[in-house]
């Protein structure tokens, strides 16, 4: 069944080959060219294109491998100086490479299904396979916008699936590979660190603590070897590679379009305060610094509230991490708790991180999907977050066709996931489903529909001259931020509660 769903969605992806593609298409084409035609020591140095290589080495190797297939399609795309080259075959090759590498994603889903399927009978494996394989966020970001997140999420799921099956070393291996493919997954590294250390290296039986030093060595070997293989060839240029991977100095608190996180709310509160201060003459603060350029300029000086630096965001993120660490330490060796911790950790980084991209919400949604099939409480949160999170991706697509496509895609996915999940959590006693939204959650979703329609169509009709180009983005990110934070709070409470319940049972 998994492969049938995968085949269906693959043919669906093929249909969207000619759609709009973002500059990420050119980014990846350039990386193909760089890795193919330049010597190794130039990979992280070359700056012919403004889209320099800024992913870790394994991804560069991945592009290198792809480039040999690309040769067969159109060798012209592999020339570094051919900026913005997009012949028909180039498009075809790049699109198909994303579609094809999604096989890794399917394998990852399969790995997770083994363990979920064995504990949960009935339709839940099929539904889980559908929810993951047809994830509309990945569809939008990978197959329209253009990126390789499906492949990367596949590796993440392989790693999570290994944990679920208690194959800890394998999990560590896959996660190290993942970190060397895209460093954004550092977001969830603390969970791996704590889990593997607490559950694999330490054993407490009847209040006797045993430390497995051998296991720690094995673990260390796996991680060090993977990193060594990846970074080995670049050992002389380590500094250069790092400066590419972490370009802190020229990035602001928020991305051009504010990701729907805590800082979006922070920004808007600051704006409102600044504007009302000016209106009522409370202060003499010059509001020019906060004049509505938010979104246009990445650097953002707050007018009333204190400005936020990278250190503050780090502290906030670490504080938000506490629940994840707490549940991991209190309940070692519980793969399900591990998944919860991953979600909590990804939430923390997404909500409080520095310069977060809106796409990062997918790192929260995919692991949360694994929980949605087993408890109706998590299922409700999953539905809320998946709808809000996927709608928050809307500003990525703004061309006419894609404006229509994105709405139908998200609508269909949301409706399908709701109808499948509500049937899965059916309560024969009350003869109704256990997945029930509260009245205010319903209200929030209706509002979300209005915001989505405003962003996609109404704004361009009301404001055709484009005087307020950032208004829809502002509304979108602030509105979605409310939803994401709400789900996060509920999820934190639910995690701590379920954890209590289990400990009482013991």
């Amino acid at each position, binding site marked *: 069944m998994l492969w049938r769903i995968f085949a269906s969605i693959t043919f*669906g992806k093929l*249909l*969207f080959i*000619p759609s709009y593609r973002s500059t990420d298409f050119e980014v990846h084409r350039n990386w193909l060219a760089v890795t193919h035609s330049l010597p190794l020591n130039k990979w992280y140095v070359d700056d012919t294109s403004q889209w320099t290589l800024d992913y870790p080495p394994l991804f560069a190797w991945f592009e290198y491998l792809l480039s040999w297939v690309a040769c067969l399609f159109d060798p012209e795309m592999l020339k570094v100086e051919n900026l913005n080259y997009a012949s028909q075959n180039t498009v075809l090759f790049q699109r198909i490479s994303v579609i094809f590498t999604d096989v890794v994603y399917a394998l990852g889903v399969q790995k997770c299904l083994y363990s979920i399927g064995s504990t949960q009978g009935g*339709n839940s494996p*099929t539904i889980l396979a559908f929810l993951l394989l047809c994830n509309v966020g990945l569809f939008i970001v990978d197959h329209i916008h253009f990126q390789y997140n499906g492949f990367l999420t596949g590796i993440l799921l392989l790693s999570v699936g290994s944990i679920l099956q208690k194959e800890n070393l394998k999990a560590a291996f896959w996660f190290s590979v993942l970190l060397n493919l895209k460093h954004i997954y550092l977001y969830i590294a603390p969970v791996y660190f704590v889990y593997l250390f607490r559950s694999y290296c330490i054993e407490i039986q009847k209040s006797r603590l045993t430390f497995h030093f051998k296991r720690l060595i094995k673990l260390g070997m796996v991680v060090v070897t993977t990193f060594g293989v990846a970074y080995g060839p670049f050992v002389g240029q380590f500094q250069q590679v790092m400066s590419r991977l972490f370009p802190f100095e020229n990035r602001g608190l928020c991305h051009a379009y504010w990701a729907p996180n805590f800082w979006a709310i922070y920004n808007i509160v600051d704006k409102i305060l600044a504007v009302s201060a000016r209106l009522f003459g409370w202060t003499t603060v010059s509001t020019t610094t906060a004049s509505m350029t938010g979104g246009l300029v990445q650097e953002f000086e707050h007018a009333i509230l204190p400005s936020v630096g990278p250190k503050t965001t780090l502290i906030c993120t670490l504080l938000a991490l506490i629940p994840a660490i707490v549940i991991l330490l209190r309940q070692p060796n519980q793969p399900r708790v591990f998944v919860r911790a991953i979600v909590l950790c990804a939430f923390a980084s997404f909500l409080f991180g520095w310069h977060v991209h809106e796409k990062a919400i997918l790192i929260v949604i995919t692991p949360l999907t694994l929980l949605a099939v087993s408890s109706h409480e998590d299922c409700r949160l999953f539905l809320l977050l998946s709808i809000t999170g996927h709608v928050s991706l809307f500003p990525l697509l703004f061309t006419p*066709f894609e404006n229509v*496509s994105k709405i139908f895609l998200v609508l269909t996915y949301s409706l399908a996931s709701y109808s499948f999940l509500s049937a*899965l959590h059916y309560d024969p006693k009350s003869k109704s489903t256990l997945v029930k939204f509260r009245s205010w959650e319903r209200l929030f979703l209706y509002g979300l529909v209005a915001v989505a329609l405003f962003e996609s169509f109404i704004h361009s009709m009301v404001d055709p001259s484009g005087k307020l180009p950032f208004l829809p983005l502002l509304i979108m990110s602030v509105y979605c931020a409310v939803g994401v934070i709400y789900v996060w709070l509920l999820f934190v409470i639910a995690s701590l509660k379920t954890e209590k319940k289990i400990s009482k049972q013991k």
Partner: protein
Amino acid sequence: MDVPFKLEVIALTTVIIKLGVSLFPYSGKNNPPMFGDYEAQRHWMEITVNLPIQDWYRNTTDNDLLYWGLDYPPLTAYHSYLTGLMAKKINPDYVNLLASRGFESPNHQFFMRMSVLVSDCLFFISALYFYIKNLKMDNKYKWVFFALCSHPGLTLIDYGHFQYNSVSLGLALWAIIFVSKGRNLWAAVAFSAALNFKQMELYHAIPMFFYLLASCHRKGSTLISQLVNLIKIGVVTLATFALIWYPFLQLHDGLLQQVLSRVFPFNRGIFEDYVANFWCTLNVLVKIRRILEPTSIASYCLLLTALFSFPCGLHLYFKNSLRNFHLCLINVSLAFFLFSYHVHEKSILLVTLPVSIASPYFPFTAFWFLSISHFSMLPLYAKDDLILPAVAVLALYCLLANSSLKLEMGRSMQFKCLAGISAIGSAVLALLFLICPNPPAYPYLWTLLVSVWSFAHFSVFFAYFLYVQFWVGSQSLKLKMQ
């Protein structure tokens, strides 16, 4: 509890598939001076928006009929007029008289594609949704039924090649729905509208006529009430026609004839390009057009078509039931496709509508037929550069409608072998068509083989459907999906 297959989900999925196909090229893209069907539709908007109604079908200095002159009945013209008005509002350049010829900016393409989608939702998808939603059937089978009805051929022609078949087929479907609800007057209105959107709806006219005629007898007990029923239907039909043709009737003499001669072009050939019908296949063996005069060809066409369709109609008249109505629709439209005059390869879509509606009787056969009808249009897709979406949509179709196959695949070994041969044969032929160059002596060899192969299928299907209508009792043909 079983997974609930919400009908809305599959309906939305088909819309997404259609949106995906819309991204691909259309007929005549970047191909001056004549372009293709996309330009034809745009041109009709230009003509109807800018010229007075009496000039729509006439050759004037502003309306060169040799450049995609209107050749569909007035309802299509009105539809063009409405979409044209919208186009004018969005950007007057879309429909500027003469100056807009060959206009195809990305925004215009978006507008045109959306006009198809909106028309489809208003007429076809909505009809299908209401029809299937109200059937007494398990949710799962409703899902399969909807998927079967959204067959790849219609998607590719409307959203790839570019036409508005979903409007005329949607209206015909509404007529079928009204018939099944016993609302014969509404059925007459809907069908008259369909007929006035595309004259090809005549393919469905004979079953419609006989069914409505027979139902008049059934309802009234006395002769008078039967007669009243008949008159009611007649009046409603005439009124619908009169309403649609009103502007052309009251204007000066000769206009009606002019419109009719545009709509029924007897001066065009017996078939266009290669069609998977009887005449085209016969033409391989005997060069008909060298032996016979065009007028006598037309009369042979009429004779053969009538020979096959009227018995089906009469059978429906004497054994009046919804099941026979569906089967008669299939048989008559297939007879028209196989034997009538001036048939396009796209006309197979008129057969696919009743086949998909009747698919609960024989899901696998219907699926098979619908896939072959898609295959028969392969040369057209190749011309329009639509091979990738054609293959992808067919694959999706097989996967989405797949659960119905198991229902009937439990049949005999011979049946499975036959289906296997058909699938492999089609695949091999498609590969030959796409990869191998034609031998120089026969520049259209593969195209011809595709149409002969499809014709072979259609004639076997025809025999099967005739057999089902005449010899399979209504008891033994239970709805397999229930």
